[in-house]
């Protein structure tokens, strides 16, 4: 079984978010990049578990610049066999997805996994776009994934519940909490990652359909109104008369 896991970098979850160049560019000063948690904790670890029980190969792919190699090595240290980096700035989800789809089309995979969403742009777009480009089924926000021969059994979130579904390979799945447990890379993994193959592929030409023209930091809350713990009638009154939410 050949599995392709899409890995993106994201700023460490405690990073301070600010912008430069007249609020048009994300300020990377002092920002630590990590592997996007959904991609690492769920998609990658589940792919490795499948490989460990039924054999196969796990390839990770990133659309990004050379600076992203550090993040890629981290994912290799957790246990992926090889990595591919499409050497381009991931301009938007469409651009990113079509680059990945192009690579996948020429290197047939049985299963393509993405994270549920990136924690910087939160679009939840890339997986569905890859699936449509390859004309494959797409299961989004799966919380459990089992392979039985050519058939995947999955659990996915639906509005207010969960559903068990089946789909045949090849297919694209986006992965969320529940699918696997985070793994901490060990020293051997980190050493091995240094020599694992990391192939750099030049991008194919893809249109840019959307463009971020600027950013804003939302207004901070005006100061909090404190209410005495013995006076919950006052809180109810404020929620009704002032905030108008009840």
């Amino acid at each position, binding site marked *: 079984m050949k599995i392709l896991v899409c890995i993106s970098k994201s700023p460490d*979850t405690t990073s301070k*978010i600010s912008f430069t160049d007249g609020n048009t560019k994300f300020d990377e000063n002092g920002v630590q990049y990590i592997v996007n*948690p*959904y991609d690492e*904790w769920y998609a990658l670890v589940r792919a490795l578990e499948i490989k460990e029980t039924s054999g196969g190969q796990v390839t990770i792919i990133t659309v990004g610049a050379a600076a992203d190699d550090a993040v890629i090595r981290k994912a290799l240290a957790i246990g992926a066999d090889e990595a591919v980096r499409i050497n381009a700035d991931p301009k938007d*989800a469409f651009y990113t*997805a*079509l680059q990945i789809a192009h690579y996948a089309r020429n290197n047939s995979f049985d299963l393509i996994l993405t994270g549920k969403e990136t*924690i910087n*742009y*939160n679009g*939840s*777009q890339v*997986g*569905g*776009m890859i*699936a*449509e*480009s390859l004309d494959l*089924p*797409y299961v*989004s926000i799966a*919380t459990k994934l089992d392979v039985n021969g050519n058939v995947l*059994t999955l659990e996915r*979130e*639906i*509005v*207010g519940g*969960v559903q068990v*579904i*089946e*789909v045949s390979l090849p297919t694209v799945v986006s992965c969320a909490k*529940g699918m696997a447990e985070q793994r901490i890379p060990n020293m051997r993994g980190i050493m091995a990652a240094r020599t694992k193959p990391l192939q750099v592929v030049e991008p194919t030409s893809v*249109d840019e*359909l*959307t*463009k*971020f023209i*600027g*950013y*804003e*930091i*939302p207004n*901070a*809350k005006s100061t*909090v*109104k*404190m*209410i*005495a*713990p*013995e006076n*919950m*009638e006052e*809180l*109810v009154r404020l*929620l009704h008369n002032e*905030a108008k*939410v*009840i």
Partner: protein
Amino acid sequence: MILVYINSANGLAKSAFETVTYGKKLGDVVVITNGNNSNETLSTLGEYGASKVLVDRNVDGEDAQQMTKLIAWAAQEIGAHTVIFSHDLIGKSVAARLSVRWNAGLISGAIALPDPDGSIRVNVFSGKAIGKVQVQTSNKIISLLPNSIQPEQTSSSCAVSEVNVNVEAAAIKVISTKKPEGEIPLPEAELVVSAGRGLKGPENWGIIEDLAKSLNAATACSRPVADIGWRPHHEHVGQTGVAIRPNLYIAVGISGAIQHLAGVNGSKVIVVINTDPEAPFFKAADYGVVGDAFEVVPKLTAALEEFKSAQY
């Protein structure tokens, strides 16, 4: 023409009225939907500005590939230049597919109507910032974050026509569906009561459930609480859990770590109840109570019951 897709498996959710209202601000709206709602129910979408509803009752809405074909067909049929989704579980998979099929730019997670320069605001960095996105193609797709605009009733009911589109067989086979009975699904809830490690143990959640019941609110929790198994996983809110934007979020015994805030900072009003006056959550709160949850929460529930009985 504006095409609005609504997911209407069982009745119409508030998000349906939001997307139709949003569409109406941009042009003439036709709705495409699937599932088993009656014509009578669907015709009420006219009150929010739809001029017509197209419904395909043979499509069950479980397979994103089928839905994409249905919506692409409708867009062609009415000559739409914009397609609008709600940014829910279906919108997240189908809007992305449609973007590729239609070669149209997708604005994912829109939180407002377009600015004068045509750009649309979206939440980025888990709500810590807002991005302004412009679409470069003449056809556009917008996926609207629930609870971003207020539905507006302006006209009267509209016509409903049944369609039967060839969407081919579904690749996804549903084996079973579990919906917890009687609970309010978290992503749709307008009022949410949430608790964290400050509650000390799962046996203490009764006071949280009582408060939620009194408000008719959904319940949520912080991540460690779901991880240790005190509460079910689907209640976990935050950066790595569900992101919500209810009208009211009451946080009890939650410190307000940045990863937790990332999932709830879109809430209109935040109430924080915590013993520690230095808890970071107070900085993000509208109303704060420094006190012991075990005393404050039952008092709040009692005050609410009192308030409700005085209402009618």
